């Protein structure tokens, strides 16, 4: 970023820059593709694999050299004994070379005497004697041994000079026992390495779970708080590493809870305090109204204004109180099984549009829901009010099953109007508190405070339903509001349940 604006560092520019910086650092902080848990697991597995392999290799090479050394020294000693015996035999009867060579054991032997090589077995010929060994025995007249690589693996060749009969004695041992032993050791070590790796994986899984558990707990708690369960706290812990997080988290939630409760209490207190004077106002206005005819014309006009606004005020306070109850989570629904069609008919009859057309097919007419009569009636009344105020025309209610599932699980109550419909961006916003639709001027008069749809949404949500708005798709201009409610499938509508 060049600093061409640096001579006029206005606030907006600085803000964008700060935002960019934050975004960049957030980007950098963003966890890599592998999660913490998998990272811990990976480290454990890699560690276990490395450790067990190194251990196995070291053990193997150590065992191998030990085994081979031991074997070589045994073989060498044996060869020396054999050579001596052969020498004695040959001293006694020089012609019986082959008999002299037969000293038992598994070794193959060759003797060089009178410029002739004589072997006990075709498996060992003089070509197999390394020149270095031959030279050492022949020239230096010293016993020596050497490990050679043969087709069948390593083998030991021992060479011994026999000066008394002027001969050289060689013994060949294929070290099969050592090879077999090493084979077993290799197998055992490989097995051990595999087991160790698996143990490492298990430990890794365990450790990563343990390591991540506080984080998972914190995430779960945060979700619970976001869902409105503000009393959620993290368990206090002895772990000094986690203590900082736990106490900071809990402090944050406490502060948040206090603030939310203070706000809710304030709304509730204000509304409660307003109720008593409202009560007096309403009663007094009624006394005046019963004497309306005795009043001069101007006083009558003033009284009409007064009484209609007292009613409006009363509605507003009721709505505010209900909203503050939602915020405080203090709503207790009085649930009872309701035949939906009958309920809608009754709810419409007490609304501001009692003659609204209701359409309901034969199947939807059988649907029952569990609902709080008065609160659900408010939802219907508010939706009809909204349609009346915005469309000016006649809204219509359609009751239909939400899906083709059998048995049906949800039912829709659709309130359609033939007004101007909604514009992009309003679909969600109209459910916000005190929202008055996109263009405030579209609202006829000043009726309603903009709490009706917000309350409807809260009520429907409490009934485990959904509410949303869309424009009509049947070619007619207008909006439709859909309330989706779960169908009551329990057939025992009996005792009222008070929740």
């Amino acid at each position: 970023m060049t600093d061409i604006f640096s001579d006029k560092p206005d606030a907006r520019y600085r803000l964008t820059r700060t935002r960019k910086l934050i975004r960049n650092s957030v980007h950098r902080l963003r966890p890599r593709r592998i999660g913490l848990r998998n990272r811990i697991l990976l480290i454990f597995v890699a560690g276990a694999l490395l450790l067990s392999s190194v251990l196995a290799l070291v053990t193997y090479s150590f065992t191998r050299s030990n085994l081979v050394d031991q074997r070589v020294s045994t073989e060498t000693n044996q060869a020396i004994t054999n050579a001596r015996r052969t020498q004695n035999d040959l001293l006694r009867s020089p012609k019986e070379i082959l008999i002299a060579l037969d000293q038992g054991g598994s070794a193959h032997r060759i003797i060089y005497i009178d410029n002739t090589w004589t072997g006990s077995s075709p498996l060992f010929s003089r070509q197999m004697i390394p020149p270095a060994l031959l030279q050492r025995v022949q020239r230096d007249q010293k016993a020596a041994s050497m490990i050679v690589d043969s087709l069948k693996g390593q083998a030991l060749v021992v060479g011994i000079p026999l000066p008394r009969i002027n001969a050289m004695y060689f013994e060949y041992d294929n070290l099969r026992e050592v090879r077999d032993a090493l084979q077993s050791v290799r197998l055992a070590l490989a097995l051990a390495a595999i087991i160790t790796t698996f143990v490492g994986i298990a430990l890794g899984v365990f450790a990563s779970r343990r390591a991540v558990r506080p984080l998972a707990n914190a995430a779960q708690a945060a979700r619970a708080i976001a869902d409105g369960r503000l009393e959620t706290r993290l368990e206090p812990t002895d772990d000094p590493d986690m203590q900082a997080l736990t106490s900071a988290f809990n402090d944050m939630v406490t502060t948040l809870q206090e603030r939310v409760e203070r706000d809710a209490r304030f709304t509730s207190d204000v509304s409660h305090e307003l109720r008593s004077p409202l009560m007096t106002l309403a009663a007094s206005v009624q006394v005046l109204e019963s004497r309306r005819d005795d009043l001069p014309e101007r006083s009558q006009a003033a009284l009409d204004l007064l009484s209609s606004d007292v009613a409006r005020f009363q509605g507003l306070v009721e709505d505010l109180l209900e909203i503050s109850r939602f915020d405080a989570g203090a709503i207790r629904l009085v649930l009872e099984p309701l035949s939906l069609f009958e309920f809608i008919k009754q709810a419409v009859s007490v609304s501001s549009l009692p003659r609204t057309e209701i359409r309901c097919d034969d199947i939807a007419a059988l649907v029952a829901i569990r609902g709080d009569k008065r609160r659900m009636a408010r939802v219907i009344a508010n939706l009809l009010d909204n349609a009346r105020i915005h469309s000016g025309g006649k809204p219509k209610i359609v009751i239909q099953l939400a899906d083709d599932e059998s048995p049906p699980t949800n039912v829709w109550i659709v309130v359609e109007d033939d007004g101007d419909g909604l514009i992009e961006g309003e679909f969600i916003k109209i459910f916000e508190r005190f929202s008055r639709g996109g263009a405030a001027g579209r609202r006829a008069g000043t009726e309603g405070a903009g709490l009706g749809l917000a309350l409807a949404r809260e009520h429907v949500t409490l009934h485990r339903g959904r509410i949303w708005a869309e424009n009509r798709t049947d070619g007619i201009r207008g909006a439709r509001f859909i309330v989706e409610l779960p169908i009551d499938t329990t057939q025992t509508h009996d005792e009222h349940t008070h929740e």
Partner: protein
Amino acid sequence: MTVGIRVLAVEDDERIRASVKLALEDEGWIVDEAASGEDAIAIFAKHPADVVLIDIMLPGIDGFELCRNIRKSSDVPIVMVTARADTHDVVAGLEAGADDYLTKPFAPKELAARIRALLRRVRPSKPGHSKLLFGNLEIIPDEGKVILNNAEVELTKTEFRLLCELANDPGGVFSRELLLDKVWGYGYFGDGRLVDVHIRRLRMKVETDPANPTHVVTVRGLGYRLQS
């Protein structure tokens, strides 16, 4: 018929009391005022009212206590005023002996309508039915008497009317909505808890074993029925 009704209004807010008094006097009724439960007991003893209106939130002895106190000596209809309809207050008030309730702020017209409904006379039973017998339970509508096992039972006016409604069609099933309409004058949106609590109270008085009712029985999913 409703001219000359005497209402005792128990409310600690002086201005509400004054405005309710004005509005009810417009109906042609006499209104006694009490600012506390203690005052109310004294005034009620001196001038027994036809209806008592009690705000639950009172200084000193509260509305529930006052309800129970009045119920000890009188079957007068009691309307209580609560802050909210969805709290336990409503059920607690009804169980303390209230006949109906209103939530603040209410219109005095609504209150007057409630009072009129509570004071409606028991519908005259069919001629020749001056005495209704349900096993060990005997109802004499014209005299307002109920006799269980040869002993007279004290019912409040509302309980008596509820029982008479059920007795008008022995064995017939009455839904909550129907009873709300006939006894309290409410429509579809009446509070079903009114019926439930009153049925419970009635059973305490007319059943030999209220836990296993034999007269006022529940018909699952439909309502209530009176039988022998």
